[in-house]
């Protein structure tokens, strides 16, 4: 089980409060978490990653365990603490004013 914290706008879209959890059926990587998240909440498709290229939208960041994972490969394993559910995976809207 992976714990995921979404920014407020995406929580509203997904009609959830607080953290969400996703179950992975494969190795816990960055891409696997995003795939599972979008499968569980289809409304999030296109809001975190581009529909076609699957690239992270430029104003979205990924943090975990006080580290910035935004530029990690989709195949990069998640930190152990995230994979075990001890720490959440954070999807963050970049600080950009507005």
């Amino acid at each position, binding site marked *: 089980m992976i714990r995921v914290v979404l*920014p*407020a*706008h*995406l929580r509203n*879209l997904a009609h959830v409060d607080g953290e969400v959890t996703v179950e992975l059926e494969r190795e816990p990587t960055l891409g696997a978490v995003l795939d599972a998240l979008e499968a569980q909440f289809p*409304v999030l*498709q*296109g*809001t*975190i990653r*581009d*529909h*076609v290229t699957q690239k992270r*939208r430029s*104003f*979205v960041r990924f943090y975990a365990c006080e580290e910035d994972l935004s530029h990690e490969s989709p195949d990069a394993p998640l930190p152990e603490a995230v994979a075990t559910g001890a720490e959440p995976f954070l999807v963050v*809207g*970049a600080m*950009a004013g*507005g």
Partner: protein
Amino acid sequence: MSGVRVLVGTRKGAFILTSDGKRDKWDVTGPHFGGWEIYHLKGSPADPNRIYVSQSTSWFGQLIQRSNDGGKTWEAVGNKFVYDGVPGTHQWYDGTPHPWEFKRVWHLEPSLTDPDAVYAGVEDAALFQTTDGGQTWEEMPGLRGHDSGPHWSPGAGGLCLHTIILDPRNPSRIVIAISAAGAFRSDDRGKTWRPINRGLRSEGIPNPTAEVGHCVHHIAMHPSRPDVLFMQKHWDVMRSDDAGSSWREVSGNLPTDFGFAIDVHAHEQETVYVVPIKSDSEHYPPDGKLRVYRSRSGGEEWEPLAKGLPQKDCYVNVLRDAMAVDRLDSCGIYFGTTGGQVYASSDSGDNWKAIVHDLPAVVSVEVQTLP
């Protein structure tokens, strides 16, 4: 008793204002989708309770929301806008090639007859359509595939397809406008397109009378006379009597012919409204006085309408999709400002009042006349 529903898109959410036929007291709901930019929302002429919304931010991209109950509840539908084939390039501001990239939906135009069918004008400029109530969207590639497509370049607001006009007498005919490519018309339901910019003159492009490259800001049509089109161009107010095949300037005695919004009275085919804006860099009314100008002669002769509008220290803008009319017997005119006011007149523009004062900056205003 009949009523009116005003659909307001703002920089930070959507608002719905409703009133009975007197248009005296207004009920306001919103913000719907608070914090998101709402470039446009529009109801289906075939089913007024079906409303489509373009919701976007730079952070999380594009969403389309749909209501089946007049805006009480909403459902996110499809948001996958993918260009047909290999997108290629258009011209960037400096004339260099720039890849076509989807940014947002500027305008949603529901079908006149089918609540599930909608056209979407997007940035970078292209026309998409859905026939399943917004679940899936497909590009109509004939427009962007026009020979001139690689030469289109953006206006200051981006390379946006912002105007879609459906001809109520001829379902095969669609007119669209792009900043800063110009106006185009299809006579075969959107399969093929031709530029309709003859008569336009724009000093900011190498050839002022070029076939494409004009910064058309908005076009309006009276539904009972679809061959007559009125255009607010970057500079110049224009008129066509042949569905855009040729245009002539009708700016006449306007204090400035720069502006964004333009619309036509619901019952008087020759009565046209614009909101003159000082210049292309000074996006506010001349002299700090917010005035709508009305022509009752299809252009050339214009009269200022100021009663009830601020006539001192007013420096707001009125954007291209932020003016609309209702179809009640005494025609109502509505427009929203970047200062967050929505002004309404229930007597064809003679008298105005703000029906809301303090919304976020208004991007679009549409009106539904309810039975």
